[in-house]
């Protein structure tokens, strides 16, 4: 058990714990924080898997961007009551069966599948550089498309979130 692996286990453990917190907590705010912890541990795992660029993206965009957005949403929807946003659960048993079923089936079928588990070391060199070049050559189409997607979503979301009038409280 080398230190790398130990770190991996640590990250996995934190991720699992934070997910469990998310499942069992009733406070949305805590859940969001737990998700942050989970995402950060995921970023760690990415880094251990030689995907540094992604790890950073994960940290910056998810932990930094998305979660702030979500927390912002929590605050906004919470403004009237002022109390912490509490969430109830329902369909617990049915959902648990379905989720557990999914999980088990995934594991069982994974067991029956012979993956190529070689952990060959990545080619030496600057991954981020290569990624940049790839992004602008081979992946230019999705890149541009992603740009359009972002543009459309932001304009649309802005419209959705802004256009309130007093008279349409119907």
């Amino acid at each position: 058990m080398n230190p790398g692996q130990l770190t991996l286990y640590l990250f996995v453990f934190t991720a699992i714990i934070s997910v469990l917190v998310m499942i069992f907590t009733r406070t949305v705010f805590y859940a969001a924080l737990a998700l942050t912890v989970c995402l950060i541990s995921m970023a760690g795992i990415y880094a251990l898997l030689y995907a540094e660029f992604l790890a950073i993206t994960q940290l910056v965009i998810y932990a930094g961007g998305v979660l702030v957005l979500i927390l912002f949403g929590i605050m906004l929807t919470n403004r009237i009551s002022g109390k912490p946003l509490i969430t109830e659960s329902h369909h617990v048993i049915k959902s648990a069966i379905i989720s557990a079923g999914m999980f088990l089936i995934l594991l069982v079928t994974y067991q029956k599948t012979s993956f190529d588990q070689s952990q060959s070391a990545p080619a030496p060199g600057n991954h981020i550089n290569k990624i940049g070049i790839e992004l602008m050559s081979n992946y230019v189409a999705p890149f541009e498309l992603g740009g359009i997607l972002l543009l459309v979503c932001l304009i649309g979301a802005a419209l959705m979130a802004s256009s309130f009038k007093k008279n349409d409280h119907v």
Partner: protein
Amino acid sequence: MTETIHSAASLWLALSVLTIPLFSALVCFVISEKFAWLSPMVSSLLLFITFICSAFLFFQVGDSHALTYSWPWFSVNENIIRASLLLDKHGLIMVMVVSLVSFLVHLYSIGYMAEDQALIRYFGMLGFFTFAMLGLVMSSNLLILFCFWELVGFSSYRLIGHWYEKQEAAKASTKAFLINRVGDLGFLIGLMILWSWLGNLDITYLNLETIPTFWLTTAGVCIFIGVIGKSAQFPLFHWLPDAMEGPTPVSALIHAATMVAAGVFLLIRIESLFTENTLVIISVTGTITAITGAIGALFQYDIKKILAYSTISQLGFMVMAIGAGAAQGGFLHLLHHAFFKAGLFLGAGAIIHAMHQAYHHQEGNVDVQDIRNLGDLRKKIPITFITFMICSAALAGLPFTSGFVSKELILTQMNEWSGNAFSWKWLVILGAWVVTLLTPVYTFRMVWFIFFAKSKHNVEMVEVPIVMRLSMFVISMSSLALLITFKPFHILTIINVLMSLYPNTSHLITLLSTLILLIALVSAFFMYKNYELKDQNKFLTPNLYLDWLSDYAFKLVLQFAILVHWFDRKVIDKIINGLTYLQVGIAHVTGWSDRYLVDGVVNGMAYSAKGIGSVTRSLANGKIQSYLLWAMAGLLIFILWILY
């Protein structure tokens, strides 16, 4: 050359005989209401022409061999159904009889129906009936014959229901047609059998060797079922008494002289078709009918009903004769019966008509057809009395009348047929003799209470109009053997052609039948002399041993009659009615099942479609997470289903 002219002439005659009555019917229906009074004259005239034509036709063809004419009617499967005329001796004699009686009835109706509102319909249907009846008699193709057979039934239906405002008339007409239809089904099945084996239905070309005996017998029996319906044989006879709801001339023409005789005529026409077994069935049926009819006639109060039962009995007698090998006798009796029974009905009509006229000014409702209300009429309406008496004598089989002649012939022929060894045939013979005994008895009873017994009501009566008297006179004359034979005890009928075929009757039989007749008349006389008819039959005190015997016999016979009547009314009628009710009942059940079962299944399918739909719809309860739940569950189930 002469042959062609001869046959061409007879063809034209035959066609005109056939079409003039139809023309008469058409004329009647075309005449507008304003000129309705014309129709009796015109149609009677036309029918007279028909009669003349038929007479000419008869003498034209004479005793030459039968003539046939045929035209293709339609073809199917390369078999051509030909509309064909068969002019043979039997047929032509029937044509004569039909046209004569029909003419006389037309004539009679001028007077009888003078005050009727629907003359057009009446004379139209009479004409149509005559056409159909003549067609029946002349056609040689069984399918065509069947067509006319049904058309005859149709006109009978219309004429019985002539006074349809009366519920009884309406019901009787329906009943008559329906019961006839039952018989017709048998006829039709017989035709189906013949067609399937022969592919041809022309009587003159039936190639009977190709049919297996079983099927031949079945076909014969089936066709005989048709005869049972039409000729009012046991067990389908009870429509005939009901049919008396129609106008009396109609009863004379259709339900005594012609239509009901069509069955007997048919039996003679297709005699070659009958196997031994068929003949047995025919003779037994005839016997039962004859006896039942005679007993029935013995206990009726309504003149027309008595005559109706008597007709049943006589028809049974003829059928029995044909079944028992006395076809010629049967045919002869058919002719004679046509005249004397028509005469009786016309006489009864005259009585009813006269009584109606008499009661017209009096108050109260008296059933003028009930013999209990009649009596002592012989002086009031003498001409009617005379004609009625002549015809009654013929019915009873008194010597010097036509009835005697044919009865003798039948008994003789049956005697030969039965042989010397005892067999079931003797029972048939016995039946014949019983009928011979009973016929004079009920005839006497009828005549006695109409003309001789003391009358309860004393009313002034006048004779019926001249046209009615004229036709009654003609018809009764034709029942007198004196006019048709010169030797009353030695049979020689008018028609020499026919006579040449007939064997002589034995004197023994003549003697015997005369004896029976005497016994019958004498005992009847003593029985009814001081007898008063009441609702409950009260019998004379037995002052003589004979009286007691006859009384006892009467009681016995009465019980049997009541039983028969009960049987007729309760069982057969109930069975038929019951069948109708049952049909209606079943129909209601099927109607119900139609509504609730068949429809229910279909609607149920629709409902269940909706039901399933509502289950699937209920998933859409508006809650997004249950949508997701169901979707994911579906996915999971799908995975599990594919995997395992």
